[in-house]
Every structure is written in structure tokens, then in C-alpha cells.
């Protein structure tokens, strides 16, 4: 008796793995991979809630409309990559392995997106990412769509604003020692040189998770810069601007993720902070206003850039399914031929060969009552 | 007489202010059973721990077979030919009886790490196991070879410690109160084993409280008190020695 149950017990375990993603054919499903556990999970929840909200709105209208006019329920399959390449690989393989998933979104962290690109490419499944690293769209993958503007778009706007409108000459650059911080710094320094012939007076990097920024702030003040351009994530940015103010820094603080998470952390220190973003909820155009109100009503707080990225991505997929039906090849072919698609964030160009389909960006400045005013817009 | 197998000269050890050993000297002749007795706290265990290198001495010489091993690590002292048992039993409780003895033979394994990996140690392992079984048979534990050493009754654990110490093929075997907590029949069994060991050419230093047994078994006896030698000689000389009696029984009061 004992031998049989052990054998069956183990084989069943392994076989269950093979047929894990068995699923009813009925609903139309799309996938989402985000960071839900471990450090770096701060954007993860915001991404999932926005994507799920978009899916719920579609289901409220009866589900996904197919070309033949019928409607099928819409389902979002969420997986967690914990911001680690090997976990990301198994998460994305899980999505791509499930034949009922016609398209998927994510990852957000470039360090997970880059090594797992080949999985989506081999399966020919449309993949929408919010990662910023340049190389993601430089290696000729045909299935990737970047649903947000990247450093190149933002840094141009920021450099022009700081040098032209604010007339600043002595800039100091600080950046987080991760992919996001590193690529932001490389692009900003390059564009500052090309567009304005300037070099940063001093450059400093800090580790993700650092808690005390007195030393970084001290070095910046000592070098006499009148603008500190910080490239990194919200927690470290908030702590840095607080220490700069505490130590009596009177210059301008520019930051490339000055969204509502940053605002909630920095509170009064956010006043006067300037920052490029792919999108901000106070963007004056009607679509942004409508989205902002609906989001406020639903979640009782401001949406961040990631909210609109994934909201637009879900709706773009739904529109495409409406035209060519829920099949990976058809969707990919259709999207690659679609020149423009108007989203909340701006006008997307899915047919862009590299996959960089949107360049809309804004530069904001937090006024006295900590509302991000839009000081320059690019589409 | 031949030069002594073990020659310990002015061995001192103090823990902070407390002097445990103050210039102890002992000579053990090879092929004999040398007794070491003394009241509680006289420094007997410290003596064994310093000689075997478990505790480094402050000063002094420990010469075994012409080689001074004072202050060296226990495994080097063991390699020089000194093996020991422990007052409060330090067997490898999680390992089998046989494995405990095999550990003793570690230095005489006859094969290194390399050959262990390439299957060439099979023959050496068999030989080592036979020797171990032989030693277990000598102390009457052969039938317990596969048992976990922690599960053996107290008396048998004592015997296992002796077998394990012998497995290191020592010249000198130091026994730290091997008879403690034993009934007379068990004592006689151990004494018989000790005699067989000496007959096979292994010298024994017996640290023991059971003075009656020490007197009957040992060829020479040294007596320690408060970390100093107070007497050395044959059992008869020791019995008559005034200082020894005082150390044990206290001064004789002259009743007026």
C-alpha cells in the first residue's frame, strides 16, 4: 500500500505542473506581470489596480466585443516576478504557456523585462511594457510595445526647461544605482551635452534602500550647484529632497519620478520640485481630466503615471480584439499596422518599428499648495 | 630504569587569580598503570585537560616519548601518542557505536580525501571496520555496533569511550574517573579490561576516586592536592604517607 501512494503522490505532483494552466476556453484573457512582493513593490499594486479597473469597466459593458459582434467575459491573469530575473522568467513562461492568454503587459522593472524578452518573442505574443531601459526596443524584437515615453523624451524636455526657462548653468546629478537610475543619468548627461553643451558639475550615485542622505546632500551643497537633478525611485528621492532642505539648499530640485507617491512622502519638501513625467493627473487635456475624475471617484486618491499606462494598454488590446479577434498573430499583425491610437496618455503609434509607440511627456512643477502644475507638454 | 614514557615537569595553570596547577611533575613509566589521586578540586581534571591540549598550560613541559607537546592542539597531542576518556562522557551521541570507534581510527585511515571519492577506499574501509569491531569485542560491545551511542546504558558508554580512545592507537591512555558511578561487578570488569590493555603494551594513567581499586591496580601512584604534588610512590608507600592521610582525612586531633 505504501509504495503505491508514494509513487502516485509524486508523479501526480509533477504532472499537475504540466497541466496547471488548464482553463476554460470561454473568457478572453490577457496577462499582467508586475512586482507584487519584495522590495520595489511600490509601483506593483498601482499597476495591478489600474489594469484590473480597466478590465472591470469592460466587463461592466458586457465584456470584450468580438469582430462578429458577440461579447465574451474579460479576464486578467496576474503573476508576480519579485523584481528577480529567474522568478520573472518562470512568471512570464507561465503567462505565455497558457494558450488562452492573447496578450500580456509588464514587467515594469527593466532588469526583468530585458532578460525575458525572448520568451514573448518566440511565442509571437504582443507584450506591452512600462520599462524605460533603451536596449529593450533596440534589439529588433517584433512583439514588444513600450506603452510610455522614455528617458530620451523626458530628458530633452527637462534639460530645455532647466537651461532655457530657468536659466540654470551649474547642475549636479544624483542617481540610484539601479537600471532606472543608471539609464536616466546616461541619457540626461548625453542630452545636456548635445543640446546645451553643458556638463554636470558633480555626479553622485546612491544605493536603493539608503535611509540617510545627509552625506549626498552635503556633497551637493558643498559643490555649489544651483540645480540638483535626481534620477531614481520615489522613497530615495523624497529623503534626498528633505535632507537638502534641512541643510539649507536653496537651489532647484529636479526629479524624474515626482508622482503622487513621491508627493505623499516628501509632503512640504515637494514645493518647487520640478520633474518630467510620462503623464500627470493635472494634465489640462479633456481625456486626462475625465480619467482623473473617474480614478479619484474609484480609488479616492490621485492616479500616477503607471495607472494611465496600463489603463491605456488594456483598452488598446480590447480595441484591437474588437477589430481582429482574440488571436495572438492577428493582434500582433493588426497592431503593427495601426499608425495612431488615441489614449488618455497621448497619441500612440503602435506601428513604430522599434516598439516605442508614444513620446508624450510633461514637465511639472509643484506649487505652494503642492499641486503639480504642467509647465511644458510634448506629444 | 628506562627513560619515562611521559615526563611532566613544573606544569602550571591558573584561571585569572585561581592557581589550578602549581608546578606539577609526574613521570609515567611505559608498560605500567600509574595512578593519580587527590581530593576533589586538587587539579586532576585540569591536569588531564592541559596535558591533552584541551586547555593550554601557562608554563611547563609535557614530554611524551621524547617529544614536548605542551600547548599544542589536542589532535597533535593525540598524534604524539596520548589518548583520553572524559570525566563526564563526551561520546558522539548522534552517531552509532561503531562510528564512534571509527572516529578514533581517523588518523590511521590509510586513505585521503581523493581516494574516498574514487571508490579506492573500499578495502581500507573494510580493514578499519574490522579493527573497530575487534576493539568493541574487547570491551564486550560488539553486539551494540549499530546502536546510537546516546541510547546505551551508562556503564556501556564508559566502555565505549575506552574503546574509542584505544582506536587512536595511543602509547599512553589517560582515563578520567572511568569507574565513577559503577557498581563493584562493573568495576571488576573494567579493571580486567585495563589489565588486558596494559598487557598489550599500552601504558595507562588512571585518574580515579575509588582509592581501594587504585591501590590494588596501580604500580605507582602520584597524589595531588591544591595543584601540588604531595606524594609519589608504590601503593604501600602512599598508604602510610602522613601528608596523604591529612589531605584526605584532615589533621588528626590529639585528644587530650
Amino acid at each position, binding site marked *: 500500500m505504501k509504495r503505491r501512494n508514494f509513487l502516485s503522490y509524486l508523479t501526480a505532483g509533477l504532472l499537475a505542473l504540466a497541466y496547471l494552466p488548464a482553463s476554460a476556453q470561454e473568457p478572453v484573457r490577457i496577462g499582467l506581470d508586475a*512586482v507584487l*512582493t519584495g522590495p520595489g513593490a*511600490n509601483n506593483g*499594486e498601482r499597476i495591478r489596480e489600474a489594469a484590473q479597473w480597466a478590465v472591470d469597466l469592460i466587463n461592466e459593458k458586457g465584456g470584450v466585443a468580438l469582430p462578429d459582434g458577440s461579447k465574451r467575459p474579460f479576464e486578467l491573469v496576474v503573476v508576480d516576478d519579485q523584481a528577480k530575473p529567474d522568478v520573472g522568467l518562470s512568471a512570464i513562461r507561465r503567462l505565455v504557456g497558457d494558450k488562452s492568454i492573447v496578450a500580456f503587459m509588464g514587467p515594469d522593472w527593466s532588469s526583468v523585462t530585458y532578460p525575458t524578452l525572448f520568451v514573448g518573442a518566440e511565442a509571437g505574443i504582443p507584450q506591452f511594457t512600462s520599462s524605460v531601459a533603451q536596449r529593450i526596443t533596440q534589439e529588433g524584437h517584433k512583439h514588444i510595445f513600450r506603452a510610455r515615453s522614455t528617458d530620451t523624451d523626458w530628458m530633452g524636455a527637462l534639460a530645455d526647461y532647466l537651461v532655457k526657462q530657468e536659466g540654470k548653468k551649474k547642475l549636479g546629478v544624483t542617481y540610484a544605482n539601479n537600471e532606472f537610475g543608471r539609464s536616466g543619468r546616461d541619457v540626461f548627461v548625453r542630452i545636456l551635452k548635445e543640446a546645451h553643451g553643458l556638463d554636470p558639475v558633480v555626479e553622485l550615485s546612491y544605493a536603493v534602500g539608503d535611509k*540617510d542622505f*545627509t*552625506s549626498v546632500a*552635503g556633497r551637493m551643497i*558643498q559643490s555649489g550647484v544651483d540645480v540638483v537633478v535626481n534620477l531614481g525611485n520615489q522613497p530615495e528621492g523624497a529623503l534626498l529632497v528633505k535632507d537638502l532642505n534641512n541643510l539649507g539648499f536653496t537651489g532647484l530640485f529636479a526629479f524624474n519620478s515626482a508622482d503622487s507617491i513621491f508627493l*505623499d512622502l516628501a509632503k512640504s519638501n515637494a514645493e518647487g520640485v520640478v520633474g518630467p513625467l510620462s503623464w500627470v493627473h493635472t494634465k489640462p487635456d479633456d481625456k486626462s481630466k475625465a480619467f482623473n475624475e473617474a480614478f479619484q471617484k474609484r480609488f479616492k486618491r490621485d492616479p500616477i503615471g503607471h495607472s494611465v499606462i496600463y489603463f491605456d494598454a488594456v483598452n488598446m488590446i480590447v480595441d484591437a480584439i474588437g477589430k481582429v479577434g482574440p488571436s495572438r498573430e492577428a493582434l500582433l499583425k493588426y497592431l503593427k499596422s495601426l499608425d495612431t491610437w488615441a489614449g488618455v496618455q497621448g497619441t500612440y503609434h503602435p506601428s513604430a518599428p522599434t516598439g516605442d509607440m508614444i513620446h508624450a511627456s510633461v514637465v511639472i512643477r509643484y506649487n505652494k499648495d503642492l499641486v503639480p502644475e504642467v509647465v511644458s507638454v510634448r506629444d | 630504569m628506562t627513560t619515562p614514557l611521559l615526563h611532566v615537569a613544573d606544569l602550571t595553570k591558573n584561571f585569572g587569580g585561581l592557581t589550578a596547577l602549581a608546578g606539577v611533575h609526574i613521570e609515567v613509566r611505559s608498560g605500567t598503570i600509574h595512578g593519580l589521586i587527590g581530593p576533589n578540586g586538587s587539579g586532576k581534571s585540569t591536569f588531564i585537560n592541559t596535558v591533552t591540549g584541551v586547555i593550554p598550560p601557562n608554563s611547563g613541559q609535557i614530554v611524551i616519548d621524547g617529544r614536548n607537546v605542551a600547548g599544542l592542539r589536542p589532535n597533535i597531542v593525540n598524534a604524539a601518542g596520548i589518548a583520553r576518556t572524559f570525566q563526564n562522557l563526551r561520546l558522539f551521541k548522534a552517531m552509532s557505536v561503531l562510528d564512534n570507534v571509527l572516529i578514533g581510527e581517523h588518523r590511521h585511515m590509510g586513505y585521503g580525501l581523493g581516494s574516498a571519492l574514487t571508490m579506492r577506499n573500499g578495502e581500507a574501509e573494510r580493514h578499519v571496520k574490522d579493527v573497530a569491531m575487534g576493539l568493541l569485542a574487547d570491551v564486550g560491545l560488539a553486539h551494540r555496533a549499530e546502536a546510537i551511542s546516546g541510547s546505551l546504558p551508562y556503564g556501556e558508554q564508559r566502555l565505549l569511550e575506552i574503546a574509542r580512545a584505544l582506536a587512536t592507537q595511543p602509547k599512553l591512555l589517560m582515563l578520567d574517573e572511568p569507574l565513577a558511578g559503577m557498581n563493584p561487578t562493573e568495576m571488576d570488569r573494567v579493571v580486567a579490561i585495563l589489565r588486558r590493555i596494559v598487557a598489550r603494551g599500552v601504558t595507562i594513567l588512571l585518574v580515579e576516586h575509588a582509592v581501594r581499586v587504585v591501590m590494588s591496580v596501580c604500580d605507582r601512584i602520584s597524589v595531588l592536592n591544591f595543584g601540588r604534588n604531595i606524594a609519589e610512590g608504590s601503593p604501600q608507600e602512599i598508604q602510610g604517607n602522613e601528608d596523604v592521610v591529612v589531605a584526605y582525612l584532615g589533621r588528626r586531633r590529639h585528644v587530650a
Partner: protein
Amino acid sequence: MFFQLATSGIATGCAYALIALGFVMIWNTASVVNFAQGEFVVIAMFVALTCHVTLGWPLWLVLPIAVLIPALVGYATERVVIRPVIGAAEMTVVTVTIGLQIVLSDAAKIIYGGQPYSFPPLIEGRPLSILGIVVPRQSLVVIASMVVLAVGLHFLSQKTSFGKRLRAVSQDRETAKLMGIDVNRTIAEGFALSAGIAGVAGVLLAPIIYVSAGLGLPLLIKSFIAAIIGGFGSYIGALIGGLLIGVLDNLVGFYISSHYREVFTFLVLILVLLVRPQGLFPHHR
């Protein structure tokens, strides 16, 4: 600039010191290395956040609660999870506390999400400038409370019966049992006290940095190192070790490079263990 770095380093250092103190207390009484000590800090932070920010209760009410709840969690931890494995092999005990760390940190994430929250300073107002050094008011609060707590704990352990029981158990559990001390209850109370101290550290630290579910493990490792540098087992050592780590972190960040801050903390640990393994303040019970 040196003093500026040192003073702000002391503020964070105090928090490491308090966590290290609680850590060492558990080691002394129950010889358990508690990997979940950092999570008690996080619990206090979130309790304070909910009561003060969301519910808007006044500080004088929120602070005691924010210290009491981790203490209760500490007591419950000992009763449910630690007591059964007290005598077991060290590896089993370490694994149980690692499991506890996973449970507590993930529970916090499920309830409060992954993103960081800010916590208003305990005392409003611009930072003071003393002798040219800018000292945020919160740092003064932290330093003051640590001094008060250190003195209070010293008083508690020397004078009160609970303190004596705690010391007896930490010196020798078996003999304490023979002397009629309810060892299990004392250890549970020791856990509660050390979790409470971690709670105080949490409440003090929240305004300086931020509140987030993922803070537990990084804080633990820093205070583990602080405890060892100070001389594992000695309370004063834990306090000084914590301050040292806080100040060192800043100085290295400024004078050498902010890349190698963390590497230096680890190198200091290894240096101390090589040169003075018993730590700066050899352990005296």
C-alpha cells in the same frame, strides 16, 4: 560637515541601538536569535500610522498603543512559536524566526501594500541650528528618548523584581527554575519587553525615514551587526554599536563613497570579530 554627518547619523543610530538592545535581550533570556525583530519595528510603525494619520488620534494616545501592540505580538510570538523550540538545535530555532519574519512582513504588505508612507514629525517646526549644525527636532526627540529609555531599562533591570527575574533567567535558566522563578513566563515577558523596545524604535524612526512593509529585514541586519560589534550579549554594547553604525554609515557615505557604504559596515563587522571577538564591551551579565 563632520559634525553634521555625525549628529544625523546618531539619530538613525539610536534606532539601530534600540532594535539591537531588544535583539540582545531575547538572546540573553531565551538564547534565541530573533530574525523577526525588525518586523516588530514595522508593526509599531503601521499601528502608529493607522491611529495617528488615518484615524487622527492624538500623539499622546497613539505612542503608547504603538509600543503596546508589538509588545503583545512579542508575548504571543514567544508563547506560540518560540516556546516549543526553545531547547531545540540552533538551526531549527533560527528557521522558525525566519519563518516568522516572512509571515509578519508579508502580512504587513497584504494589509498596507508595498508602497512607502510618510509619517508626520512628532514635534512640528523647522530644524534647529546648534553651533552651525542643522539638527531636525525629530533627531533631538530620538536622542532624548533613547537616553530616557536606557536609564529606565537600567533602573528596571537593577531595581524591579521583573528585572531581577530577567537577569537570573538570562544567566542560568536551570538554576532560575530551581529558585522557583517561572522561567517560561519571564521569557515571554522578556520577549514582550524587547518587542516593545523595538516598537519605540519604530515610532522614533518613522518620521525620520518612512513607513513601509519591507523595512524589517534591512533594519534587522544593521542592528544584528550593531549588537555583535558592541559585544553580543551586553546591553551597553548594543547601544554603542547601534550609534557607531549610524554615524559610520554617514561618514563613509560622505568621505569615501556612497556606493561602498554597506560594504564598509560589513567590513567593520569582520574587522571587529577578527581583532576583538568579544566586542567593544565584553559581555557581563
